[in-house]
Structure formats: C-alpha cells, structure tokens
C-alpha cells in the first residue's frame, strides 16, 4: 500500500524509528476498534466463510453449557412453583424472586447459547441479493388499467346511473348505524344538552332525608365534626358529605378541604359570611383538571395540587397564585347546627372542578345574582 511504510523503512538517522506511544512499524495502522466502529461496512468476505473447525468445536462446548444452564433454570422454575407459596409480602417476595430469577436464567441461557452458536459455529455470511425497483413494469400496469376499465364497463356501474346512485344512497345510513348505537353510552337517560346541569350541582345544596342541613363528615373517621373541636389554627381536614361517604360520583364533586384560620389571617377574597369562627371550606377538586388539591402549608396558607402544581392562596379566597389552574377553588357556605356540628349552608355558588364549554363565566353570574363567588 504505501509510501509511508516505505518511508519508515528508510534508514534515516534523523527520523526516530519509533515515537513513544505509537505502534511499531509494520503493525496495521488502523486499530481494531476503529475498524469495527464502522465494521458493519465491511471487513466481510463476500459469500459464505466457514468457521475454523477447531474453534467451532470449542464454541460447541460453550453453547452446550449455556443450554444446560437454561435447562436447569427451567427445572428450577417448575420446582419453585411447587415449593414456594404466596400470601404475605414476604412469601410473595420469595416466590417472585425464585420464579423470576429461574425464568431469567432459563431464557438468558438459551439466548446466549444461540448467539454463540450463530457467531462461532455458523459460517460468516455476506450474501448479495439484487434489489429491484418497487414499481411494476409498464406492460403490467397497462394490462391492469385495461382490465379495470373493461370490468367497470362490463359491470354497468358507470353507465347505469340510477343503480349507482341508489347504491351510494343505501350505504350512507349504514355508515351512521355504528355511531348512533353509541348514543346511550352515558347511561343518564338525559338529553345530551342537559348534561351540564348535573355539573352545576352538588349534594351540599340538598337537605338530608330528615330535612336537616347536611353535616360535614371527616373523611376516614366517618364522624361529623363540632366547630368547637376543630380549634387549632393551622389545622385541616378532608371532608365528605353526610350520607354519601362512599359514593364516588358524589365525592368527585363534593369533597372539601376544611381549614381553620386565626381570624386575623383571613383576607378580603374569603366570603366571611360563609365561614364559621375562622373555619373555611373550599372544594378539594382542582379547577384545572380535577385532582384533589390537598397539599396545605399552614405557614403560607398555600393549597397545592400535586398533579400540575396549581397553587391557591387559602387565606384569600383560594385565588390562583401559580400554575395552570385559571379559577379559584369554590368556597362552600358553612355554619353550625343546633348541636354545634358544622353543616353546609347551601350549595357552591359556582360549578366545581375542571372547566368545560357550557360553564360560562359562572363567577360573574354568581356575583350578578348578588352572591360572592
């Protein structure tokens, strides 16, 4: 190849024969690693190159060992299934470890064995096949075109307009049938235009079956709560409506976050008529996409929604101070009944939860009606 090798061999005393850190003369100038980086490009001998028989029989032993290991793994899986029972986290953990690791060994043994087989026993292939343009021959295309025209004419589909048009007409309603069949997916038996009426209303607006105002129930304990007991400023509770403690459809709209403030902490955004002794109730359902906005920091009075980090100022009517939510959390009017338990004094003035097309500016609407949103 080359004149530089030739040059190196020249006895020239001023040129050092070798510089530290360089390969000795005569070694291939290109390292194996570099060659292999682009190695997919070649280094391959065209055709089929058989493996050296001695190396291949060495590889066979390795492959057999892998397959044996896979066999043992498979057997271990069967044994583990019988031996290890499940139940407690501990027992299940042992079973999972035994089954999983034996399966992994079984499969991995096979995989490694096959790769060694392909690489060291099967020949090296560099077969060449022709590619042809995907497009069909001109003649074929002409024949197909002619056949199409001929068939179309023979069928009379082009000529017989009445038949063609009625056929198209007949197909049209058939296409609508699958769509119309889905109409009752909503299970409400309501007109679709009145869906949004449901969204404007929660059970807090209804009296209980006994005709009493609905009590606030502490989520998890199931107990109603006396205002006098909820007396530590900086306290919060998650509240569900009496009578609907486990009704998920109700909870998705009516869950509250109840916060106890020192009276001087409340700012103008809070409707003080709807509070009781520094206790304020907000909808827990975020106005962004409806996650429960429930992270409360008593020092800053921030309510944070963990899903998309909308932040509301609880001391100031839960107005949005950060994040994607566009509206404050609606405040629920609360008071106490004659036994001192906290109850709802009415429904939310505006729809709770995420915005939707028919919502409109409900806050302005509520203000126009004389309330405070």
């Amino acid at each position: 190849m080359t004149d530089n090798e030739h040059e190196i061999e020249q006895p020239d005393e001023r040129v050092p024969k070798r510089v530290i850190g360089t390969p000795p003369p005569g070694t291939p100038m290109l390292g194996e690693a570099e060659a292999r980086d682009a190695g997919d490009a070649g280094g391959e001998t065209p055709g089929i190159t058989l493996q050296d028989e001695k190396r291949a029989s060495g590889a066979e032993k390795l492959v057999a060992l892998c397959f044996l290991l896979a066999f043992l793994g498979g057997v271990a899986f069967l044994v583990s299934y019988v031996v290890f029972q499940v139940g407690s986290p501990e027992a299940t953990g042992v079973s999972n470890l035994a089954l999983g690791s034996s399966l992994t060994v079984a499969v991995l043994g096979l995989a490694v064995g096959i790769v060694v087989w392909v690489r060291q026993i099967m020949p090296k292939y560099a077969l060449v096949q022709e590619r042809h343009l995907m497009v069909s021959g001109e003649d074929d295309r002409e024949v197909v075109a002619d056949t199409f025209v001929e068939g179309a004419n023979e069928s009379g589909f082009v000529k017989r307009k009445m038949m063609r048009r009625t056929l198209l007409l007949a197909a049209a309603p058939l296409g609508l049938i699958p769509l119309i069949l889905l109409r009752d997916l909503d299970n409400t038996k309501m007109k679709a235009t009145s869906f949004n009426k449901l969204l404007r209303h929660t059970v807090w607006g209804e009296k209980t079956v006994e005709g009493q105002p609905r009590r606030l129930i502490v989520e998890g304990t199931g107990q109603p709560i006396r205002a006098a007991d909820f007396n530590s400023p900086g306290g919060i509770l998650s509240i569900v409506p009496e009578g609907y403690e486990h009704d998920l459809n109700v909870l998705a709209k009516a869950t509250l976050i109840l916060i106890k403030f020192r009276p001087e902490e409340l700012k103008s955004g809070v409707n003080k008529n709807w509070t009781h002794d520094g206790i304020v109730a907000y909808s827990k359902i975020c106005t962004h996409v409806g996650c429960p906005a429930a992270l409360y920091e008593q020092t800053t009075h921030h309510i944070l929604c963990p899903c998309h980090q909308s932040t509301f100022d609880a001391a100031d009517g839960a107005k949005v101070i950060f994040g994607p939510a566009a509206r404050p959390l609606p405040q629920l009017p609360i008071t106490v009944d004659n036994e001192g338990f906290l109850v709802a004094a009415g429904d939310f003035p505006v729809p709770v939860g995420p915005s939707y097309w028919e919502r409109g500016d409900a806050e302005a609407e509520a203000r126009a009606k004389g309330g405070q949103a």
Partner: protein
Amino acid sequence: MSELTTVPKAVGGPSNWLDERLGGANFLKRNLRKVFPDHWSFLLGEIALYSFIILLLTGTFLTFWFKPSMEHVLYDGSYAPLQGVGMSAAYASSLEISFDVRGGLLMRQMHHWAALLFIAGMMVHMLRVFFTGAYRKPREINWIIGILLLTLALAEGLTGYSLPDDLLSGAGARITQGVAISLPLVGTYVSFFLFGGEYPGTDLISRFYALHILLIPGILLALISAHLVLMWVQKHTQMPGKGRANTNVVGAPFYPAFMAKAGAYFLFTLAVVAGLSTFAQINPIWIYGPYTPADISAGSQPDWYMGFLEGSLRIMPAWEINMFGTAHAGTLPLSVIIPALLPLGLVMTGLALYPFLERWITGDHREHHMAERPRNNPHRTSIGMAGISFYGVLWLLGANDEISAFFHINLNWTTYAGRVLVFAAPVLAYIITYRICLGLQRSDAEVVSHGVESGVIKRLPHGEFIEIHTPPAEDIEAHVRGKEPVAMLPMAEDPSGIPHKGMRGPIGKLRARMSKAYGGEKIPLVDGHGHEEEERAAVGPGEEDHTLTR
C-alpha cells in the same frame, strides 16, 4: 456427527403434505435465503415486536383472574394492611393476582415492564428510522403505519394504566376526564359518553378493559403484521459499505442465520423483562390503596410515555377564556386544551408529514435503500434533535416534583425554567447538532482525502516535524464514501431569467429557498478543505506526496 445429504423424513413428510395443499415450496425457494443486512440498530424495532408478544402472553394470563368491575367489595385477601377496606372488584382482583396467585406478581410485573419497553422500543426504532432517512421512498407507508402504531400504543398504555383501579391509576383517569371535558363544544358529551355519566361512574373499567384487551391490541396486531410484511417485501435498508449499493442487499440469509439471531433477540428481550420483574418492583398497587376521587398522593405520575403530556400541562400558564361571558357556553380552558393537544399533535403530525415535506423540499423522487448516516443530512438530524429536546424538556418537567423533592430545587423554579427551555432547548439543539454534523463530515472528508493519523512522526531535513498519514481501511473508506449529497430542486433559471416551474409565487420561492438550505453538499468529500494544501507546502518541493487520496 455426519451431515445431512437429503431432507430427513420427519421434515420431508409433513412438508410434502403441506406443499401438496398450499404450494409453499415456490415461496420458500425464493425466501428461505432472503438476505437481511446486519447492523445493531436494525434490531431496535424488534424490542417492540417481542415486547408485544410478551404483552399478549402475560396479558392473557392476567385476564384469567382480573375482574373488570367497579362493584364495591370489602377486601379479604392476603395483604394485611388493606383487609376490611372497601374497594372496587377490579382493585381487589389485582391484589389477588399479586398476592394469592403463584407467579401472578411476576406476570403482572412482566406485563408492566414489557409495556414500558414496548413503547421505548418503538421510539428508539422510530428515531433510528428517522435519523437514517429510512422512511424515504418507497417506505413512506410503513412509516405512517409506524406512527399509527405508536399512537395506538399510547392509548393502549393509558387504558391499561387505569385498569387496576388503585389510587394512582384513578388519578390518571381523573386527568383524562379533566382533559376530555375541556374540549370545546363536545367536551361534556365526550366525558359523559366515556364514563357512562358523571365521573367516575361505574363503567370506566369495563369499557377500558374491552378497549385494552380486544379492540386496540387487535388493531395493533393487524398493523404490526402489515408493518412486517411491507418490510419483508421492500427488503430492509442497509448501511453504506464495501460492495453495497442501492441495487443490492448484503447480509446474512434468513435461514439459518437471521432466524437464529432474531430468536436469540426475542429471548434476550424476554430475559430483560423477566430480570427486571424479578429485581425491580413496578407499580406496587398495594401501597397505593383503592381509588377515591377525594384523595391523591404526592408524586402521582403517569407512566413515562405520558410524562411529556404531564409536563406540558404543568408548565402551562393559567389561560382561560369565556367567549360569551356568563352565557352557558363558550368556555375555553386553554390551560388544558393547549398543553394536552398541541405538543402531541405537533410531534405526531410532524413525524407523519416529514417524509412528504422532505420530498417536496428536495424534489427527490428516487427510491432509497441505503441508510443515510445522520451526519450526512445535517438539517434532518438537527430537526430530529430539536424534536427530541422539545419532547425531552416536557418529559423532564413531567417529573419536576420528584426532581424538586430529591435534588432540593425550588419547585416553582423548575416550572419557570421549563417555560423557557421548552422554546430555547430545541433552538440550541438545532444549532449545536448542525455544527457537530458539519464537523463530522469534515473529519470524514479528511479521512478520505488525507488518510488516518498513523502516530508516526517524521522530522524533515529542515527540522520540521510532520505526522505520517496512512490510508483508511478499505471498508471504512467505502462506508464514508457511501455519502450522497442531499437532493435539491433544480435551481437554474432559464436564459431569460424566469425561475424554474414550481418555484414561482411566494410558496414556490419559499420552497426554493428551503431546498437550497436543506439540500446540497455542505462539505464535499474530496478537495473539501484547504488544510491539505498547507501540508503539501510543508513537505516542500522534491518530497514525495505522502497524503493519500486514491
């Protein structure tokens, strides 16, 4: 052992039986030795294929115990901290699979890990196809099928994520509902139809179940089959190299070598899925507890492939419009609609249209069967990297609460940074990638025209030291020389100065300008740089030229 001389009876008998009925020998004659080019990146798509097979198998196992019902039950299974707790039958049966069925937890975990790898495999495969230009004619149809597969896989993941009905999956369903109901005009209907009335209703699990185990996998299976048949018919692309051309395929035959490699890769995928399921716990639903719309946990996250949507929802400012004031219509919750639809739409539409846009801009109507090295089409590679960084920023922001909690970074600052980066990072990525591509092209040109540094230093008679270059290995040179200039529209104006047809008018002019920027040879392989000249001068007259261009 001796080798075979004829087909053994055990194979020949049944083959004959089949051939007499199907005539398969003709097909097999042409295809048994079908050649498949070898490159590690050509196997990435197989990750997705094999994950899908694992998903079908493990998923079927799970259906034997799973109850797709939201009926309220009291849990009485083995997991003590939830005994006596009210929950849906779906959640209770998921717990049963985890703790009361032998191998159930392993299968559940394998199903979930395989799902994560399914979509990750699709994405790396898609990136490989994109960056090597393997979507070009005649493979556009397969590219579109791939985009459909990815979209369906996201839907399949979303429906599957919701099925166990634990507190985490319920949060996902809640966000899905919040996004659905925000759609203009139809949002309320979509939400009511999907959930069977008000959220959450009692129908969601059974409906998602039908979609998750029947409809979507059915379509996926059909499209995957079509994807493979097209690949088979059109033959795989190959990397440029010695003896390789647009008119041939060089590689290993399907039988026996490729078959064995593909089989081994399936086993590797299975081993990785099984290994992960043994040693890394995924979706521990028993810790999450049953779903209730009243509760949420810190760090509620979607699976990784939905993370970019989560991130875009998080960094969006609070925009909302009431078009008709207090009228009961016209609310546009832009802070939901834009982040939920725009990034996904941009990425998917951009990907789907890219082959056609590129063809329009370059005017390249030829068939391409050689994979292009990413550096050799610098604009495409830069656009791809810009897309990746756009996706990456949103994805990262989808985890900003965990990032904030574990690295103690102010949560709000991660959001502010994300709002800037989502625009800045793609631009930066574009510029940097473009420069790197040109740099790599330059070094390729150097290798071809100049040789490789040999590490041998020679001192010239007048005292100067030079390093001797040696020509690159043949195969490497062939690989580098496989470069083709990016096609470009014919630019020449005709003698009277009238631009080429199709390049008149504002759109035509834009097209011409883009073609000029996108196409053409940026760094020609030979005589591409003046460096060579200097060195020749350094060698001085009388010296033999030691630079080796061929």
